[in-house]
């Protein structure tokens, strides 16, 4: 009886503690939301004023003349650098958080057993939001295939994940406008879906190394979904990781762009990369395929080509060829795919990229 009473009082106190803790936690959430909103407001105010800031820096603080080549180049650099970096930080942070909702295990569950077509579209879309590091391309491939994700669908994922990433999109948006970024997104997805679908139709399952299928399907990571603080941590980790890796490339790219902006005459590139040079698209893709670069590294080249007259389709094709396919990737994939399948994979994707290049040269 006594114990009963004690029990009840204890329980009552625990309940009171729990509810006060929840209140504190709720209060903590409110504080964090307010902080986030404040940071966003600061970001936006600075972002809007960047062009005036750049002008002030180039012409009032530094002794350049308006209309001079160097002045134009410096102003361009002073405007584009913080703009692109700020965009990068914001978007990488946001995508980092979105990615915590899409673990590879979850993606695999969604895709396993799907029919083609629907599966290809889903896989391409999921490739954008599922966290993907090129070193885990092979474990991911094996994990997908052994868990019942059709081969073609897996390939759609493998094409979209490295190519359609937020860094590429932000950089394209920041430096060339939303239309180019949207174009890249749409065509990237189209190529991922189409090439995965084609490879599925070719029924090349027997060109996967046999030992892959002998691996029992793992249960995948059974981690509990993270709390919001964990998700935000993932966002800040992503910013530190990704922006920390690419910021130098971004600045280099903008510097190149600034130099061109100020100095190189228009239409310099048009003669051999313009729309009329029909062979420029396949050539660009051929040159780009074996090259390896992350999205940020290829932007300087994209800047110089586009800025001085190269056709948009050719440049997009080159960028995609560099990012989506590379010699190191072929070597890595060779561990799990027989040569014929690696070649088919590369061939189909390259062909898709070439077609897109032609299409846009024709349309624009």
């Amino acid at each position: 009886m006594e114990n009963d009473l004690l029990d009840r009082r204890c329980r009552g106190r625990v309940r009171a503690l729990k509810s006060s803790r929840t209140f504190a936690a709720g209060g903590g959430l409110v504080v964090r939301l307010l902080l986030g909103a404040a940071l966003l407001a600061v970001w936006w105010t600075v972002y809007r004023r960047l062009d005036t800031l750049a002008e002030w820096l180039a012409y009032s603080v530094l002794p350049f003349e308006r209309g001079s080549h160097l002045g134009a180049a410096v102003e361009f650099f002073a405007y584009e650098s913080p703009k692109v970096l700020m965009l990068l930080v914001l978007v990488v942070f946001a995508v980092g958080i979105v990615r915590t909702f899409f673990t590879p295990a979850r993606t695999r569950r969604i895709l396993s057993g799907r029919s083609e077509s629907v599966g290809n579209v889903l896989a391409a879309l999921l490739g954008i939001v599922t966290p993907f590091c090129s070193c885990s391309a092979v474990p991911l491939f094996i994990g997908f295939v052994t868990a019942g994700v059709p081969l073609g669908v897996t390939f759609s994922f493998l094409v979209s994940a490295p190519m359609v990433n937020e860094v590429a999109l932000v950089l394209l948006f920041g430096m060339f406008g939303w239309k180019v970024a949207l174009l890249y997104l749409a065509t990237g997805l189209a190529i991922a879906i189409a090439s995965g679908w084609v490879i599925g139709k070719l029924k090349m399952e027997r060109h996967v190394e046999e030992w892959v299928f002998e691996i029992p399907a793992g249960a995948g990571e059974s981690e509990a979904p993270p709390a919001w603080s964990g998700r935000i941590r993932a966002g800040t980790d992503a910013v530190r990781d990704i922006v920390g890796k690419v910021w130098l490339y971004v600045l280099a790219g903008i510097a190149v762009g600034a130099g061109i902006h100020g100095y190189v005459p228009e239409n310099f590139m048009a003669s051999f990369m313009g729309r009329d040079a029909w062979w420029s698209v396949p050539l660009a893709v051929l040159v780009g395929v074996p090259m390896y670069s992350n999205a940020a590294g290829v932007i300087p080249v994209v800047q110089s080509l586009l800025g001085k007259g190269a056709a948009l389709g050719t440049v997009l094709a080159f960028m995609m060829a560099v990012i989506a396919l590379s010699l190191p990737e072929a070597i890595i994939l060779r561990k799990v795919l027989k040569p014929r399948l690696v070649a088919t994979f590369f061939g189909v994707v390259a062909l898709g990229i070439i077609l897109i290049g032609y299409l846009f040269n024709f349309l624009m």
Partner: protein
Amino acid sequence: MKKLQILGTGCAKCNALTEAVRRAAAEIGPDHEIEKVTDLRQIMSFGVMTTPALVVDGKVAVAGKVPTHDEIKVLIGANA
């Protein structure tokens, strides 16, 4: 004596995890066996899809990222 295995095919993050695990383990005590697993078949046998991954005494403790120093210590120390 805990057996710590780091799964990864040799990219920068895998090496970073190895280093971080070595540092954390050294702080806890000397009785840790640290092994780097680079063979794909072995990696897949743990059911891991995202490298790098840390396996403590046969159980996957974390996969796909490099945890902080303190987090690693908890992961190594928590499995009794």
